């Protein structure tokens, strides 16, 4: 049995742990937090206005056109959905693998998932020509015959996948929060706090019977979320893979998208966690440098997977002998949108290679910068897939370019406003680390970590 690194530093008592973690909830917001929150809020409002203008005037305001029918909105949708995946992965998959280190990051990662999915979920609804009729995408009985929906359309699969994913991950997250809410309830100094968190805790009382059911449910949800999270990005990839454009119609998409999702997701987790560690120093003992290193390892691994996917795409395009397919990929790397392709390659494949070196894996500034690059790179991956495949397909007569407009920029930037607003609120109002989950592992690494 190998000696484990300590998961919680400074041999804390149960009380200390509780106090450390709930500290951000019980003190007044710091200037830094306030500043970030207000700017995020402003961005969010800007986002709402931009959407309002686009929806009321018409999709024509965005760069989408003929032949490039999908643009920023779909790209950013896939981007955010991808971000979401790391959360579920950490909380569910690593839980199944009994990875104890997950406990301290799981909560925040899940929160990220929930907010990312919320941000993403809006896009498919907004990007339609007549968003006010989006409810037609759901199979409900109606007075048109009734006229149902087309279950063969990948977009409909999306509707089911994304809404299921949103629901389940939200439930999963909330169930995890329940005992911690109880803790906060019991620490509450004033009545309002007690009532609010009391309500949120659903009257949790932590008897042994409860705990045994609770742990079973947690295990089940983890078991359900794992295939779910894989299915969601698989289905998102079907939007492209099941259609028949050269560059979209490829069988490698599902695994490639999932890997990419995890890749970008961990990128985002690292970005956020480095910030959280700065914002709330007391978390440094729980989200240790070891945690960060493990995640960086995952980033590097998945980065390699994605790189492999890029490579094999090209190989298959050449090997298939399909002229359209070949052209599509040559066009990606050498065509008018080559720049976006090479941004993608350098951000997703080259830069993460830094993490071969332990020194960089454990350096907060380095990992922060790299994670940012990863996020940029992954957005561009979706840009490359969506736009470069559409803008030159079968018939050269209707090849064209994407007409990027300032509304595209507004929508893209604005979506970050929405995400950050939610996330910052979460940091202040919810325990950012799972209290009940950290306590059992507080001794790991102190007495040779039996358990």
């Amino acid at each position, binding site marked *: 049995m190998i000696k484990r690194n300590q998961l919680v530093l400074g041999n804390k008592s149960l009380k200390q742990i509780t106090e450390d973690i709930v500290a951000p909830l019980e003190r007044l917001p710091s200037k830094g937090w306030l500043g970030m929150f207000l700017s995020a809020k402003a961005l969010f409002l800007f986002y709402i206005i931009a959407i309002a203008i686009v929806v009321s005037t018409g999709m024509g305001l965005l760069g989408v056109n003929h032949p490039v029918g999908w643009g920023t909105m779909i790209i950013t949708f896939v981007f955010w959905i991808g971000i979401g995946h790391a959360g579920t992965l950490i909380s569910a998959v690593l839980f199944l693998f009994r990875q104890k280190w997950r406990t301290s990051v799981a909560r925040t990662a899940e929160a990220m998932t929930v907010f990312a999915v919320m941000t993403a979920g809006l896009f498919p609804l907004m990007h339609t020509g007549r968003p006010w009729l989006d409810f037609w995408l759901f199979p409900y009985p109606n007075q048109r015959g009734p006229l149902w929906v087309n*279950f063969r359309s990948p977009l409909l699969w999306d509707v089911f996948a994304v809404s299921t994913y949103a629901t389940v991950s939200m439930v999963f997250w909330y169930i995890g929060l329940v005992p911690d809410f109880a803790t906060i309830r019991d620490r509450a100094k004033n009545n309002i706090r007690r009532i609010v968190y009391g309500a949120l805790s659903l009257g949790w009382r932590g008897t042994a019977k409860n705990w045994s059911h*609770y742990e*079973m449910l947690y295990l089940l949800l983890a078991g359900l979320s794992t295939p779910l999270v894989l299915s969601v990005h698989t*289905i998102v990839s079907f939007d492209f893979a099941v259609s028949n454009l050269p560059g979209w119609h490829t069988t490698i998409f599902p695994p490639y998208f999932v890997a990419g999702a995890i890749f970008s997701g961990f990128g985002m987790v690292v970005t956020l966690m480095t910030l959280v560690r700065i914002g709330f120093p007391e978390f440094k003992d729980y989200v240790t440098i070891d945690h960060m290193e493990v995640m960086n390892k995952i980033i590097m691994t998945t980065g390699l997977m994605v790189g492999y996917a890029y490579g094999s795409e090209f190989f298959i395009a050449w090997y298939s002998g399909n002229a359209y397919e070949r052209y599509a990929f040559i066009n990606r790397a050498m065509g008018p949108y080559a720049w976006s392709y090479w941004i993608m390659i350098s951000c997703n494949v080259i830069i993460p290679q830094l993490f071969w070196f332990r020194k960089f894996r454990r350096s907060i500034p380095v990992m922060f910068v790299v994670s940012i690059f990863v996020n940029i790179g992954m957005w561009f991956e979706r840009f490359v897939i969506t736009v470069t495949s559409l803008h030159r397909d079968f018939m050269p007569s209707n090849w064209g370019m994407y007409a990027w407009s300032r509304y595209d920029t507004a929508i893209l930037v604005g979506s970050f406003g929405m995400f950050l607003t939610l996330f910052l609120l979460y940091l202040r109002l919810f325990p950012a680390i799972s209290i009940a989950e950290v306590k059992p592992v507080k001794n790991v690494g102190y007495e040779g970590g039996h358990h």
Partner: protein
Amino acid sequence: MASWKYGMAGIFETEESIIKAAYKTREMGFKNFEAISPYPIHGMEEACAIKRSWIPYVTFGAALVGLFGGLALTYWTSAVDWAINVGGKPFFSLPAFIPIMFELTILFAALSSVGALFYACGMPKIDPPIIDKDLTCSKFAIFIPNDDNGYDESKISEMFRALGASEVKKAEF
């Protein structure tokens, strides 16, 4: 758990002592006592002789419902109720329906499991009595309701003290 019970509660400081206490309490012949802890404790199930949770059966059942519900929905709407020729594909194109069926399976399973938990733990509870504020933070407790057989306040408090309880009190739970 329609309404709250009265009884004796012993507060303990450490994980080890609470487990010991749980064993002892059971040996004393108490049946429906509660062991309360801020986090799930390894070995508490044996200590209190709690049977494995039945929630998985609910999950499985719900999953099946979701699966076949999905199949039924897709089949009925696209092949029976109003069969429309879409892209020359067969009316009942099963491969295309699998994602739907899968997602419904997961959804039903997950939600009804949570429902089951709520049922099992009687949640949501509004404003349940609390024996000690620290029980969700750093302390542990055993609560023996007064309707349990062989309920005797003096004997119980004596036992709790012997087990090293930091505090023994009459409580509502």
